[in-house]
C-alpha cells in the first residue's frame, strides 16, 4: 500500500483535480478489496487450522468419549499409519482408562477415506488399527484385551467429498467389546 500512495503523490502534480478524485476512489476501492481478501483468506485458513493440521483431523465433531476426558478415536494423514502426537496423547488416555477398568475388552476399528481402492484400504485400515494397538500395548494393555477390525472405506462418518470429510474418516476408533 505504501508504494501505491507514493505513486499518487507523484501523479498529483500532473493531473487535474477530477482525475485525482477518481484515482483516489479507485485506490480506496482497491484497498478495501485487498483488505476484504486478506480477512476472508485469514478466516478460511483459521477455519482449516482449527480442524486440520497438515491433512490430519484435529477437531472434535465426530469424536465420542469412552469416559470423561477419554476420546474414542485417533486420526491419520492420507495414506499414513503413523500415530501423530495428538493420537498418542489420546491413546495414553485410553490406556490409563483401560488399566483402571481391567475387565474391559476393546475392538480397534480401522478406517480409510474414500480416495483409495477398496482392497488396499482394507489393508490400510487394518494397519491403522494395529498402530493404535501396538501403542496401547506399550502402555501395558495386554493384546488379549484388544481385537482389530478393518472396515477400509466402508463406514465413513462424514459422507462429504472434501478434504475435511476425508480427514475425519481416516481414523481408528476404540469400541468397547463387552
Amino acid at each position, binding site marked *: 500500500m505504501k508504494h501505491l500512495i507514493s505513486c499518487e503523490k507523484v501523479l498529483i502534480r500532473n493531473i487535474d483535480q477530477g482525475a485525482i478524485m477518481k484515482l483516489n476512489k479507485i485506490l480506496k476501492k482497491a484497498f478495501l478489496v485487498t483488505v476484504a481478501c486478506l480477512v476472508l483468506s485469514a478466516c478460511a485458513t483459521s477455519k482449516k487450522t482449527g480442524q486440520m493440521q497438515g491433512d490430519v483431523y484435529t477437531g472434535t465433531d465426530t469424536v465420542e468419549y469412552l469416559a470423561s476426558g477419554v476420546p474414542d478415536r485417533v486420526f491419520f494423514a492420507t495414506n499414513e499409519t503413523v500415530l501423530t502426537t495428538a493420537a498418542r496423547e489420546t491413546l495414553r488416555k485410553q490406556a490409563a482408562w483401560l488399566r483402571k477398568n481391567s475387565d474391559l475388552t476393546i475392538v480397534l476399528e480401522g478406517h480409510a477415506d474414500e480416495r483409495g481402492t477398496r482392497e488396499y484400504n*482394507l489393508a490400510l485400515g487394518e494397519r491403522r488399527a494395529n498402530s493404535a494397538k501396538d501403542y496401547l500395548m506399550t502402555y501395558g494393555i495386554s493384546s488379549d484385551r484388544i481385537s482389530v477390525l478393518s472396515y477400509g472405506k466402508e463406514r465413513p462418518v462424514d459422507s462429504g*467429498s472434501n478434504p475435511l470429510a476425508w480427514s475425519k474418516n481416516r481414523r481408528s476408533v476404540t469400541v468397547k467389546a463387552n
Partner: protein
Amino acid sequence: MIRILFIILLLVSPIRAFALIEVDITRGNLNPLPVAVSPLSIDENSRKSFEKIIEKKNIGSEISLIVENNLKTSGLFNPLNKDAFLQAPDIANLKPRFEDWNLIKAQALITGKVSFINEKLRVEFRLWDVLAGKEMMALAFTTVPNNWRRVGHIITDKVYERLTGEKGYFDTRIIYVAEEGPKTKRIKKLAIMDQDGANNKFLTLGNELVLTPRFNPTSQMVTYLSYFRNLPRVYLLDIETGMQEVVGDFPGMTFAPRFSPDGKKIIMSFAKDGNSDIYTMDLENRIVEKISNHPSIDTSPSYSPDGKYICFNSDRSGYQQIYIMNSDGSNVKRISFGNGLYGTPVWSPRGDLIAFTKLHKGKFYIGVMRTDGSGERLLTENFYQEAPSWSPNGRVLIFYRETKTDSKGKGFSAKLWSIDLTGYNERLVDTPTDASDPSWSSLLSN
C-alpha cells in the same frame, strides 16, 4: 441354466477367404458395420405356445431384439431400423433378396426361424454377407423355452466370432455388489445379472457387509469377502445351489480373493498385526501356502491366464504400485513406474495386458499396461472409479464409478460402467440399485 441343449443341426462352414465383411476390433471403431437383424419368423401355433410360457407376444421378435441390442452395445455394429426392411422375415430366411438389403446399406443380414417342437424351443439362424450375396453361417439350437434370452446371446456370440475372428462375450453374467442407503450406512448385497442387465437377482439379504465377488473362470462358483459375524473372511458361494462356506478362516482378516485360472485355488490377502501378505488355498486339499512375504501391504493378487505369474498391489516402495512375481512368490518385480499411485491389477484373459486403477493428482483412471509395465494407456478419467474386470475375450472392461457428494454430503451414487480396450464405447451398465465391484463370468456355453 446350464441345461441348455446345444445341438447344431445345420452347419455350413464357410471358407474365410470368401468373406468380404470383416470387423476390426483392435482399434476404436468409428464406423460400426451396418447390419440388418430381421425378426426371427415364427408360425402362429408356435407363437401362441410360447406366449403362454414366457408371456411375450412374439418370441421371435424378442430374440432378435436381444441380438440387436447386444450388437449395438458392442459398438462394432450398427443395427438398422426395422421399418426400412422390405422383405418378410420368413422369406428372407429362405433366400434374401440381396438387392433390397443392399438398398438400405446393410452389409450383413441375420435371419432366422423359431418353432415349438416337443415342448422345446428350436431356433435356427443364418448370417448373410449382403455384398457378396452369400450365406456365411447357419446354426440351429434346441433348448427349454425359458432359455430364450440365452439363445439371443449365443446367436450374438456366433455372429461376433464369425465377423471379428474372436470369441464373443454375450452369453455371460456379471456378479456385483448391489448398494443401497446412505453413504455412512451402506447396505450391500451380492447380486447377479445377465451381461445385458436382464435377470437381475440378489444372492444375499444385506444383513452383513459383502465385498469384491469374483467368478471362478471355469464354473459358476464365486469367491467374495463377507463380514458375517463381524469377521471379515473370504467365502465361497455356489450360485447354482446357494451353498456358502468360509475358506479364509485364518486368525485375522482375509480379503481380496480371486480364483486361479484352473479354478482349483483361491489367492487372497491375509492381514495380521498390521501386515498383509498374499496366500493361496487349494480348494481340494485345503493346503495353504504363503506366497508373498514382506512387511508392507501386499494385496489385490491376480494370476496370469497360464497360472505361472501373479500380479499384485504393494506399497513396499512407500506407495501403492503394481508388481509381478512367479506363482511361487519368487522373482518379485515392480512394473508400474508412471506418476501417481497404482492399484487393482487384473491380468487380461488373453495374457498380454494388465488392467489397473491409477490415482494421479486427485483423479482416478482405468488403464492398461503390458505385463512388463510398458505401453501404459489410460482409458478413462473420473472423480472416482476402480476395480476393472475383463470380459472373457479380453476386449471390454467393466468397472465401477462413484460420484462426488456436494457440501452437504448429498448426491452420492455408485454405478457400473464398461469401456472397450480401445478407450471407445464407454457405457453405463444399468442396474436396479447402485452397484460396485463387478466381475465378469466366462462364457456360459462352449
